[in-house]
């Protein structure tokens, strides 16, 4: 009889878990819709500003002209110090979402160590911070509480620190890593070199004939454009990551709910078997008792 009670308790407990995970899934679904909308709206702008900048990078590299702000555009093949800005979530329970980003960062650390390149980490998101703190890896900057509530001002603050160091010559490269939103059910790890600005991957034969004429104060324009580019890329990484986080959590919670359901099924079966068994035993006892009275 004790066994029966035990199983019943287990069923109850799993059912409660199921309720929790289902609720969390619903919450994530609602949040995802909003985050997805924000990410979609900003994507056009992010893509465009990257296009414009990479085109400028291509042209500056091709003509080597002006040498304005060339450090931002010329590729340094042997960087000595790299800044890595990576974005993780503030909360867990979202499957492999955070681990994927962390793995990418660790791979980068390993590769750089082999090439004797110093890597400095700037972490955004509690999960990433906690992981590297636990591992005893030093973080240059840690921003907690930004990933779950991204804003343009915070993005500005984060990227400014990295860019200022780049301008001061402390670093040769800034890389941004985040787990981005692909669609409702999948995420995509995005690793991007922020500075130096990368020329477009495909060659631009069609426009290679025309020249870009920087007007008076070309540097000023480029400065403003670059700043916008850095800030916007950071901001986009944050909101993209948030959308991805919610989609990952939604999926993880969906799986958890299904697992709980399966578990309840198995336990119910076990419960019924145990119940039947006890009834049979009781019956045998009664019958044998009656038999012995005869």
């Amino acid at each position, binding site marked *: 009889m004790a066994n029966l009670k035990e199983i019943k308790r287990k069923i109850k407990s799993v059912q409660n878990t199921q309720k929790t995970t289902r609720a969390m899934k619903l919450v994530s679904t609602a949040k995802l819709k909003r985050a997805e909308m924000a990410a979609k*709206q900003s994507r056009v*702008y992010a893509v*465009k500003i990257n*296009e*414009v900048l990479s085109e400028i990078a291509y042209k500056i590299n091709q003509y080597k002209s002006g040498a304005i702000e060339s450090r931002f555009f010329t590729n340094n093949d042997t960087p000595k110090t790299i800044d890595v800005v990576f974005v993780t979530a503030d909360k867990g329970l979202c499957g492999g979402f955070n681990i994927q980003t962390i793995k990418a960062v660790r791979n980068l650390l390993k590769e750089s160590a082999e090439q004797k390149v110093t890597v400095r980490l700037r972490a955004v998101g509690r999960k990433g911070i906690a992981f590297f703190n636990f591992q005893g890896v030093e973080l240059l900057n840690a921003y907690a509480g930004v990933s779950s509530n991204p804003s343009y001002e915070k993005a500005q603050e984060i990227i400014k620190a990295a860019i200022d160091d780049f301008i001061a010559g402390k670093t040769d490269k800034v890389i941004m890593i985040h787990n981005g939103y692909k669609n409702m059910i999948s995420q995509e790890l995005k690793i991007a070199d922020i500075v130096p600005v990368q020329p477009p991957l495909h060659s631009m034969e069609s426009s290679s004939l025309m020249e870009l004429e*920087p007007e008076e104060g070309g540097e000023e*324009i480029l400065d403003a454009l670059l700043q916008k580019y850095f800030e*916007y890329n950071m*901001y986009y990484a944050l909101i993209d990551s948030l959308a991805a986080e919610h989609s990952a959590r939604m999926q993880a919670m969906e799986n958890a709910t299904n697992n709980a359901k399966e578990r309840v099924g198995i336990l119910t079966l076990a419960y019924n078997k145990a119940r039947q068994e006890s009834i049979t035993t009781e019956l045998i006892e009664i019958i044998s008792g009656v038999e012995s009275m005869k």
Partner: protein
Amino acid sequence: MNTLKLEIVTPLGQIFSNDVKSVTLPGSEGEFGVLPNHASVVTLLSAGIVDIELKDGNHDVVAINWGHVKVDENSVTVLADGAVSISGGSESEISKSLESARKLLESIGDSDVAIAIAMSRVEAITKTRKL
């Protein structure tokens, strides 16, 4: 007919994307017009009005507060911080978007005169369109 592809994007999404005849932009050094086959240029934009001449000869107006433009031979890409498209079929819709355009221009604290000039231009253009 020669046209150029105009795209206006803001952090909140794409405002405009179409083939147009010409476009007049509020450059930081003064207003300038762009026709197809314009020389390529990248420049800053200040607060003001983007006047778009559509293929059918009608005009569309977009108010922007700050941004960049990249012009090349057959495309114009405007990256604006904030933009309000002044459009709508009815009087009330237009006046509503006019109001938000005014707010956008005022939010950057430009001088009243500049705002007044911009707004009067918008009104003039929207009037010609309706005829």
